[in-house]
């Protein structure tokens, strides 16, 4: 258990935006310098707070995308057209702006870096973000735990981190990545576009089943994926879920 990762009061910290990188047409990664940040556990999130000049403020939670690192954290934010906060983060925010957050939060949906067991990651859309932190942490920690990522995404253009994931997979060090395209697949893709089904999921009663399964995405995706995993023989107790409502703001 990683509960000890959250000790005492979680104070608001004043950071500075160091860099903003475009990931897709609708998503950016925001790197933030935070002098008092001690690092996090892969899978954890932060609360952010935006404040207008008259004192009005809005808070939201965002998953951390980066591997743990003192003094720095990186978030990936998907723009929701009718959102209050994400249009600011993906459109208005610039390097050098102040950035207020507190965390890291959540001691459940975390990958234990010391664990050698095989890990299955199942991502729906922007649910990839905390799982990307786990993938990056795996390499940063020098772990050889076998990782399999199943990434369900609307189309190739909507896939976050595609180039980095391809590069990581080319290293052939135990990270396997499979895409499921739900609306538009690349030319010549063997599987017609459609929702994640039983055929894409590894069996839970195979000779070396995943010791940990992390599922993250919109509610409907997580419900469906978790049910398919149980039908495929995975132990319910091994499946950890994190769900994004459609109204993340």
């Amino acid at each position: 258990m990683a509960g000890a990762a959250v000790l005492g009061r979680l104070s608001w910290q004043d950071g500075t935006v160091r860099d903003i990188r475009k990931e897709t047409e609708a998503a950016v990664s925001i790197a933030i310098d935070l002098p008092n940040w001690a690092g996090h556990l892969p899978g954890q999130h932060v609360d952010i707070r935006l404040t207008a000049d008259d004192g009005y403020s809005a808070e939201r939670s965002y998953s951390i995308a980066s591997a743990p690192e003192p003094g720095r954290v990186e978030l990936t934010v998907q723009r929701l057209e009718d959102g209050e906060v994400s249009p600011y983060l993906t459109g208005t925010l610039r390097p050098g702006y102040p950035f207020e957050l507190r965390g890291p939060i959540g001691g459940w949906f975390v990958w234990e870096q010391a664990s050698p067991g095989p890990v299955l990651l199942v991502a729906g859309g922007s649910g990839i973000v905390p799982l990307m932190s786990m993938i990056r942490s795996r390499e940063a920690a020098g772990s050889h735990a076998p990782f399999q990522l199943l990434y369900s995404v609307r189309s190739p253009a909507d896939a976050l981190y595609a180039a980095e994931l391809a590069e990581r997979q080319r290293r052939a060090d135990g990270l396997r990545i499979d895409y499921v395209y739900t609306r538009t697949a690349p030319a010549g893709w063997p599987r017609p576009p459609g929702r994640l089904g039983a055929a894409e999921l590894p069996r839970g009663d195979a000779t070396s089943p995943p010791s940990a399964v992390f599922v993250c995405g919109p509610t409907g995706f997580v419900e469906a994926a978790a049910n398919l995993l149980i039908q495929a023989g995975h132990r319910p107790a091994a499946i950890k879920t994190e769900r994004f409502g459609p109204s993340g703001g």
Partner: protein
Amino acid sequence: MGIVSPGFHGRRRGDQKLPPGQYLVTDFPVLSAGPTPRVDTGSWRFRLKTETGQVREWNWAEFRALPDDDITVDIHCVTKWSKLTTHWRGVSLDVLLAEADTSAQFVLAHSYGGYTTNLPLADVRDGQAWIAFEYEGQPLTAEHGGPARLLVPHLYFWKSAKWVQGIDLRDKDQPGFWESLGYNNYGDPWREQRYWGD
């Protein structure tokens, strides 16, 4: 006031009913730590255990024969969404606790699937908590905690344990699932008690 975010205006709301840091949703997000347990009402039991080990158990038919309430409340999730004027039907904890001989101060609720959450006993008495089995006129769906969930709307919604299986009355407080993982032991949305130390 926090540091100003240049160029941020936000959406002002005149609504005084939202606790600090919350925003309004019209859908009903689902947040659970694992897969949704499937519990059928034929095997469902609710078990009340006192600090002296006395146990009272209800099956579904016995539970549904108890007097129930129509409940209209606002709910507030620690992940920052709030939903106003939600309608539920459920059995008040006052009814379930009526015959319990107890001097306990605390409650540990536990759920099918292994989830737990802790509350002061005083917070589930006097019309403040229910075992809810209907939401907006329909049987409570499994993903929202059906067949029955705890409903304690004056605290953050993780205290309203889904798939509730029973409550233990305790002399000593014992942190539940999220309370052991960094979330506040009490969870008052109006004091923004989200995490340890809030």
